[in-house]
């Protein structure tokens, strides 16, 4: 077209480059502590806290080897994966449905329930841990994966519900209206129309839920023994070691090991996120 548009397009491109580089720089800043953690995990304990800090040293795998064995990391990792994905999926389903109800479905009193559910997040979990243990013990449910999954759902569902409500509220009403006019039930409209469009929101919330469940410590400490023990419990044991102490190496090693699965998961999920967006755009 005319020169005005070319200039504005150039400005747009420049702006774009600024954004890209700013993003990369910020990512690097945010990731530096993680880099330091990974670096430290390969150092001998006596090299971790030197004055001044060292970048070059004799690397060792000893920390990893000894702690994987000592803290039963492989079993705990499996447990953590089971519990995190279980509670993540369960809370996404229950929470999205509830969030949708709050956003769209007219029910008397639903708003009250929604607010109550959100308020339940205000109870400090420390207070809940002991009575939950007492109930679990009475029902014979201690040290089981399902117990932990249900316990985690209590704090995940309110979050999911409230976040998904925010997403749903931003969707145009015509979507369900046209689906229901075509003969869909409410459920059908939700699962066939709303959910696919909201994939970015659902996946992001799912990632968030799984991460929260992945690192939860208090309930895992109280409700599990050796069968369903999770990685955060191992980390707490290393950090709170009052016998050998100075376990910075082990802490960073286990920290690195716990970060990797979730990063891989997030990278995989990113593909679906983009795909979901592309689908959503073509439907509009």
């Amino acid at each position, binding site marked *: 077209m005319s020169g005005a548009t070319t200039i504005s397009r150039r400005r747009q491109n420049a702006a774009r480059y600024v954004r890209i580089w700013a993003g990369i720089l910020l990512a690097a800043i945010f990731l530096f502590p993680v880099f330091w953690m990974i670096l430290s995990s390969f150092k001998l304990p006596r090299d971790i806290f030197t004055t001044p800090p060292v970048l070059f040293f004799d690397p060792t795998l000893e920390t990893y080897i000894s702690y994987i064995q000592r803290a039963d990391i492989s079993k705990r990792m499996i447990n953590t994966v089971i519990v995190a994905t279980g509670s993540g999926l369960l809370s996404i389903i229950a929470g999205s449905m509830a969030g949708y109800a709050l956003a769209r479905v007219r029910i008397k009193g639903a708003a009250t329930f929604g607010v109550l559910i959100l308020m339940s997040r205000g109870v400090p979990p420390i207070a809940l841990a002991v009575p939950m243990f007492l109930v679990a013990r009475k029902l014979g449910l201690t040290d089981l994966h399902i117990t932990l999954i249900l316990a985690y759902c209590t704090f995940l569902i309110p979050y999911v519900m409230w976040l998904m409500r925010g997403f749903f509220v931003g969707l145009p009403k015509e979507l369900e209206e046209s689906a229901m006019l075509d003969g869909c039930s409410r459920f059908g409209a939700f699962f066939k129309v709303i959910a696919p469009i909201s994939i970015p929101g659902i996946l992001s919330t799912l990632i968030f839920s799984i991460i929260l469940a992945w690192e939860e410590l208090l309930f895992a400490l109280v409700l599990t023994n050796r069968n369903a023990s999770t990685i955060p419990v191992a980390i707490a*044991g290393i950090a709170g070691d009052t016998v050998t102490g100075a376990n910075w190496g082990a802490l960073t090693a286990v920290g690195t090991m716990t970060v990797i699965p979730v990063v891989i998961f997030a990278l995989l999920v990113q593909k679906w996120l983009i795909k979901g967006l592309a689908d959503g755009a073509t439907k509009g």
Partner: protein
Amino acid sequence: MKKLNRFKFSVLALIASLIISFPAFAQEGLGSEGNPIEIQMIANEAFANQWQQNMVPEFQKSYPHINVVIDGVPYAELLAKSLLDATGPEPMYDIIIVDDPWTPQMAEAGVLLDLKSDEVAAWTSPDYDWNDFYKAPLAASEWKGVQYGVPLRSNLLLMFTNNSLYEKAKLPAPTPALTWDEYFEQAQKLVMDRDGDGKDDAWAISTYFKRDSLTPTIWQTIMNSNGGSLLDESGKAAFNSDAGVKALETHIKLLDFAPPGAVSHGFNESMTAFRQGQTATMFMWGSVFKGTAVDPTKTTLTPEQVGIQVMPVGSSSGGAHRGIWSGSINKKSDQKQAAWALLQWLSSKEGEQWHANTLGVFPARKSTLDSTPTSEWMAPVFVALKDGYSVAGEGGMWRPRSPKSDAVQQVLADEVARAIAGQISAREALDTAAKRVNKILK
């Protein structure tokens, strides 16, 4: 002739009694071939795995029909979890490993077995010898005259010294006779700039200063070694005496000779500073000696450089602080005999020697501490332990003995931290603490 007959008769009687008592060893309490017993233990995560992998197989050489499963729990939650389990209708754990201040609480909750009762005495071997234990470690698991546990991992707060730094400052290496006044005189010279770049790079002391329940033990040791005590005979707070206030001021004064950032130093940081060769002394739990003086992957120091002894001498005595892990048995356990078999074995004369020599765990028996350890580096530790046990015993150098001990310790941790951070004066801190503690203990 009559003497010989009598001798023969007594030998026959001895053999006969052994034959008769043999079935006692094969009784059900200890399991049998094809019918093993399983006992469960709850312990500190820090050593649960070491015991499961090393101690249990050794135990099973003597008791092949007893399986032992050990669950490790991080220290901060161990007491709560042990109590929750032990007070339930069907406790899971037969053996509970308790830290020094926990016995009164667990005993009052009614969950611990009296190890000197007739029931247990029947299972105790005659050469177990309770008197062979030093009084202080044994008293850690005793409450109101009843013995609820046996010392398994003994520990004392002691003074570590870096003798090369003393040499560099042209000072004589410390001996157990070192007094607090001498200590502070030397401290001035121990803050050094070794590489001449204008900045100090060596200091006199690293120890607990941060907000933590173990930090008050440093202050308390100073107070005890000057004749002060935590509680008086009627169980009321006595630590806000002049001796107590002066001791806290001494603890705070140590900061002047400590590395930058020492206010936030606890267990890990103070150990690291010492291991990097940056501080000349360290008030720390003796159990870290191996990682501090011997293990080259963890420390820059060597056994020749590191000394270990009691803390400096006050007006009364030297200083130490007791920290014993004891093994006790749940009263409601179904496998009391097997549980006691394990505890007895581990704390017996032979068991303790094995434990000390193989796993480097500190002993509590006179016989073990008088023997020569197989690892050379343990020899000076044994000397320091013997000294420390007597000193600790005399001066009551342990955390408050009360069912409300944890609440009291938390109050002390709070107020001592505020004084060390300079938010309030030492006197105000201890007076506030005394008021709060008396409310808790009434």
